[in-house]
């Protein structure tokens, strides 16, 4: 079973801007609660910040979630970037999916992981060759 929960941009956004009626927010809260039940770590790959932090007022809610100390950011390093490149090549996907590839490569680098994502098709394609990475659709 997974020891780490990885949040992509939509999962982080769904938590930051959660409303009672949002299905994505409920699913994101649910997987976060299950991560807590399993004492798993929750991580956001740094590249995801490029998608959710645009320097506007909406950043404040994201910053609040990250400042909670419950979720840590994993910095992108050369090994993760190279792994992401290999995943893109294997899945025959273009660099337009680079952030998705960083997300999957970060998950793979951290061991057995589950990725909460709003884009399960692309993340699933990239994760197809990473047996310890599974996908949870929001």
């Amino acid at each position, binding site marked *: *079973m*997974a020891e780490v929960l990885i949040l992509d941009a939509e999962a982080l956004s769904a*938590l930051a801007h*959660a*409303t*009672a009626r949002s299905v994505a*927010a*409920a*699913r994101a*809260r*649910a*997987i*976060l*609660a*299950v*991560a*807590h*039940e*399993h*004492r798993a*770590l*929750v991580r956001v790959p740094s590249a995801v910040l490029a998608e959710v932090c645009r320097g506007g007022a909406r950043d404040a809610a994201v910053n609040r*979630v990250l400042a*909670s*100390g*419950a*979720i*840590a950011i994993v910095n992108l390093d050369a090994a993760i970037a190279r792994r992401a490149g290999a995943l893109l090549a294997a899945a025959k996907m273009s660099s337009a999916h680079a952030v998705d590839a960083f997300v999957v490569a970060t998950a793979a680098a951290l061991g*057995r*992981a*589950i990725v909460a994502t709003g884009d399960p098709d692309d993340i699933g394609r990239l994760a197809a060759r990473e047996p310890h990475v*599974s996908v*949870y659709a929001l």
Partner: protein
Amino acid sequence: MASGVAKISISLPRDLAKALARRVGARSVSEFAARAIRHELEHERLGALLGELDENLGPVAPGVLEEARAAWRKS
């Protein structure tokens, strides 16, 4: 994360100290303790964040929670 290190002294039950020494050896105790403490603090803060979300938005529907548990079991 603040840089640098702070030296602290802690007291442990004797059996726990022995088990720790067997597990990591004397030199890696700090690294092991830092990882364990960070993990514990994150776990507590995640509990607090979830509590805050529940308070503001109401609880997550049991069915949604069960689906998430099933996904985790399969991971």
